[in-house]
């Protein structure tokens, strides 16, 4: 078995980076030093045994057979048995301990990375694609798990074996060893060449496999369109091209390994030939014994396999360091929205004040909000309206401290949100997103997301508060119903109800709502509307409004356009002004279904 790992040019680390990655990895691995050291001991033990075999054979031949001493022969046999047993036991333990250390390390890495990703503020998730983050936590770590499971073991034992064998060889006969190792430069050159070529070849294979898979996926998911337009022949023709390209890439990678395997095999035999030729010559001069020549020949044959393994593992190790480097980059990112060391709890209630805030999304220069100020009274319902991209959703997000303003401040009961403890902030201000996002688990689990230690009764109470308890209790498994991935077992309206119940469970002073743009089926729509009304009772509410009806029910309306607050007042006031809002309301009324 051999791994086909490869590193692309942009991922490859230079010497300094690689050193740094290794140093940091070592630091992360400190808690696992005990099993790691144990593993190293056992690897050394089993490797030593592999080298001792030929030595014992030499002793048996020189002293036992050629020395005509059966006792010496028997001693060598007995020792050989012992060595074999030690090697067997050592090797069993090495598998276990390497994995205890390695899997422990990976587990710690997973937890650390995940915790760090979760600590990041939303801007981080805007910047990094979800797919990339997921693959850091999955594919990248998994690529290392292969290394942990057998690669690391092989790497260390191959390196030890080569070292031990060389030492023993040199001690036995340095002349013979040096002569036989004349082939080493060729193997080294071949290995370097192989490592480079195979890296390139594997990268090409990986890319072609990706192309091939997406071509397959596209054809299978697109079969209706393809058949509707009778395009099968053309699609087959195209797929043959992609498929052929994959085949060609496979062939190239096979060619690369083919010549290398041949060269290594030949060099191994050539070293034996040299050892025999030179050994015969040295033996005749009495410089080496027959047993030594034989032991050298046998050891040489066990020297080349590890060399070959090392050159193959090189790619694996390189791709693992590249993965680690990417993870460290994430671990180095400090969250922008974070708790201050001297954070205070927010008061139970109070006005929400937006004080001259200016804000641009991180990484951009154009502000989406420019010097916006407004105050929302306790229990007031404020609707934010404006065209797409005007900044109304951004304003809502800042009012819940999902982002921090670049300038100005948002305050609740006089306390700057940046100075508040995150726990009290999430208790006072709750954001309800457009669509109910559910996690795998039961309905109750999904509510507990808002309050991990909520009792069964609290959960029922939260659902009752929005008049949704009956609906879920009517399910055969009630609140213990598994909602499956993304809540696929519930309807869109039911998911929204769960999402609202979460907010009710927290019982916040301020609600920030992003109204859904698309509507639900008429039955649940009314239910959700009703739940929302119940939820908003007695709470300060900021709603990003998309519907005229919602806007009309608000106490005041704030019109945001191009990042500025252009109008603020009640429905009647703003209609009377005849400005931006009046125009918007008219357009709305016109486009309502007739």
């Amino acid at each position, binding site marked *: 078995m051999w791994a086909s790992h490869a590193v692309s040019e942009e991922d490859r680390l230079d010497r300094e980076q690689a050193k740094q990655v290794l140093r940091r990895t070592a630091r992360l691995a400190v808690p696992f030093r005990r099993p790691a050291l144990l593993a190293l001991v056992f690897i050394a033990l089993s490797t030593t045994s592999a080298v001792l075999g030929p030595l014992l054979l030499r002793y048996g031949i020189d002293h036992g057979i050629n020395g005509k001493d059966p006792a010496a022969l028997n001693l060598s046999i007995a020792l050989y048995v012992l060595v*074999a047993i030690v*090697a067997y036991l050592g090797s069993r333990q090495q598998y276990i301990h390497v994995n205890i250390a390695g899997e422990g390390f990976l587990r710690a890495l997973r937890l650390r990375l995940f915790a760090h990703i979760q600590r990041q503020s939303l801007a981080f998730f805007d910047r990094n694609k979800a797919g990339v983050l997921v693959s850091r936590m999955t594919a990248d770590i998994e690529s290392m798990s292969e290394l942990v499971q057998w690669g690391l073991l092989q790497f260390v034992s191959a390196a030890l074996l080569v070292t031990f064998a060389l030492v023993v060889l040199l001690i036995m006969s340095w002349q013979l060893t040096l002569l036989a190792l004349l082939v080493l430069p060729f193997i080294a050159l071949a290995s370097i060449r192989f490592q480079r070529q195979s890296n390139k070849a594997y990268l090409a294979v990986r890319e072609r496999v990706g192309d091939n898979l997406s071509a397959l996926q596209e054809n299978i998911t697109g079969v209706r369109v393809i058949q509707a337009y009778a395009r099968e022949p053309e699609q087959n023709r195209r797929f043959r091209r992609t498929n052929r390209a994959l085949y060609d890439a496979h062939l190239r990678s096979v060619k690369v390994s083919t010549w290398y395997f041949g060269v290594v095999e030949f060099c191994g035999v050539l070293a034996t030939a040299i050892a025999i030729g030179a050994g015969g010559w040295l033996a005749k001069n009495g410089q080496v014994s027959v047993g030594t020549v034989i032991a050298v020949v046998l050891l040489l044959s066990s020297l080349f396999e590890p060399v070959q393994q090392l050159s193959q593992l090189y790619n694996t190790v390189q791709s693992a360091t590249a993965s680690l480097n990417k993870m460290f980059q994430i671990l180095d990112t400090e969250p922008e929205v974070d708790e201050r060391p001297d954070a205070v709890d927010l008061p139970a209630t109070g006005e929400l004040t937006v004080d001259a805030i200016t804000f641009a999304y991180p990484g951009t220069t154009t502000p989406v909000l420019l010097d916006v100020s407004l105050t929302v009274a306790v229990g007031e319902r404020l609707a934010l309206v404006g065209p797409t991209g005007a900044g109304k959703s951004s304003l809502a997000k800042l009012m819940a401290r999902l982002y921090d303003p670049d300038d100005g401040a948002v305050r609740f009961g006089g306390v700057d949100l940046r100075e508040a403890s995150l726990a009290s902030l999430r208790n006072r201000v709750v954001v309800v997103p457009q669509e109910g996002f559910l996690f795998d688990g039961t309905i109750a689990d999904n509510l507990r997301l808002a309050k991990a230690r909520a009792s069964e009764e609290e959960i029922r109470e939260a659902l009752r508060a929005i008049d949704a308890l009956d609906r879920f209790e009517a399910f055969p498994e009630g609140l213990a119903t598994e909602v499956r991935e993304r809540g696929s077992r519930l309807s869109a309206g039911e998911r929204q109800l769960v999402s609202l119940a979460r907010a009710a469970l927290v019982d916040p002073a301020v609600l920030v709502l992003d109204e859904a743009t698309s509507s639900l089926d008429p039955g649940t729509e009314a239910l959700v509307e009703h739940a929302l009304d119940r939820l908003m009772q007695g709470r300060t509410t900021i709603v990003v409004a998309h519907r005229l009806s919602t806007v009309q029910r608000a106490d005041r309306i704030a019109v945001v356009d191009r990042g500025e607050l252009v109008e603020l007042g009640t429905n009647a006031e703003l209609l009377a002004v005849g400005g931006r809002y009046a125009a918007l309301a008219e357009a709305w009324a016109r486009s309502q279904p007739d």
Partner: protein
Amino acid sequence: MTDEAEETPTSSGWAKWRPLMLLLRRQWRGLALGVLVGLLWTVGKVAVPQFTGLAIDRAIDGAESAWGWALLIACAGMVTGTFTALRRYVAFSQSRLTEMRLREQLLAHILGLHIGYHDRAQTGQLMSRASSDLNQVQAFVVMIPLTISNFALIAVVVGVLFGTDPTLAVFALAPLPFVNLAARRFSSRIHPAVLEVQQEQAQLASVVEETVSGVRVIKGFGAEQVQTDKLEAEADDIRRVSLDAARIRAVYLPFIDLLPAVGLIAVLAVGGHRVLNGEMTIGELVKFNFYVQLLVWPLRTIGMMVAFGQRAAAALERIDQVLGTTPEVLDPPSPVTLPAHTRPGADATGGAIRFDDVTFGYDPDEPVLDRFTLEIAAGSSVALVGGTGSGKSTVARLLVRFYDPQAGTISLDGFDIRDLRVHDVRRSVGLVFEDTLLFHDTVAANIAFADPDADFDTVRRAAELAGAADFIEQLPDGYSTLLGERGFSLSGGQRQRIAIARAVVSDPSVLVLDDATSAVDPSKEHEIRAAMRTVMKGRTTIVIAHRPGTIAMADSVVLIDAGRVLAVGTHDELLATNPQYRQVLAAAQTATPSATPSAGTGD
């Protein structure tokens, strides 16, 4: 990959091997070459220890010059090196060839299967047939020539050893069959363990995935700890099953390494004393030593071969289930040729459609269309209106023979569509779906989907007709912009307009728009309506829509309910006379997104 049936082969028949056998027969020359180079490899492999043993006796322990023997060994090394390389190359290139051809065959078959099959099949399942299952087959095929030469090597070595010293041969070889046995058991035990690790990894991945996608909710409630606990449980599971797998390795792999050592000790113990008694030479002892080591890998791989074979058999069975499915929608044995005016691009008006007593259900026991009869004159336009599940979309799907009705006939210009070539029917009827699939290709190629040879002017005219030209020109690379999953993503309405342009290029005599403008922003729909009028001119058009404005464009409206035609008339007539029609339209209104000044997803 969670499906139980995926893991265990249910039948042990030979039928599943047929597709593979047919392919392998096509490659018999390559495979024979593989066996031949394998035999030459065997010769080289066996020669090296033989020469080494002789050299030790005659040159090291004897009087002959050692350099002559060294040269001989080096020559044997040349042979071994060359054929090690060739053996590997032939085996891998042949297996990749099989894999490539089988995948081609598989996709061609999948694309030819009736839509009824695709309704039930899962994309992921079909994908793994053509990827991971084929990899299993490839891993097996590569072993075929390698195993044959491995057997040859074992046979020759065993022969040589028995020829040299039968007693010692028994002692030396006795532990080796256990290598094979252990390798076989290892392979079959480690496989499920590895699968379990993969499954746990997949579970962790879904926690990560939902956390990253739901991060706004998690942040909103400060629920980081809940997710951290979930992840920790999954990470613990991974560690647990990985350590289980490590324990299996720890049991088998050191044991497999131990066995040849037992053989070597036996050689030294028995052989050593024989040499001491003068019954054997040192060279022969060394030769035995080498041969025992030489046999380890072939025995190990043959042991794994059994497990590979089982996995390949299971994979082949799953592949054969796909290849063995017969397409249900086929060309008739002697198809009728469509007259010129019905074919795409015809000047004269063709495209008269008739549904005659058609009964059809996706499940034959639950008919969706019930003795459905409808006639549409060539060149006229009809809007099909009905509630959810009324069967209106099924009408469109039957017309392009995605399914065949259980009773009744559908005819195109007087011909039963089952008497025509499937290809001809589908080129005459252009179907535009609600949900448009764009391929990973340029905008132009996506529009020219029906006719890849269409020139650029045709494409651009089609885009203009479909009201898509404006936004296409604003794309980063205009008509050359790459679309699809890995390309530029368009809004639903933009995709639908590309789909309409696609239908325009195919220039069908019958155009079916199945909810094809539902995602177009209502404020933009009037632009498209003008385009649609141009597109509809001169061809039979069936419009399936909800919006009154779109419905009103058709010459007549057919109200469908429970698989039957309930009423026919113009939009205004039905609106005035038919209460059920008004009801259906009103229901559709509340279900469609309420119009907003901005259809964006927030800012």
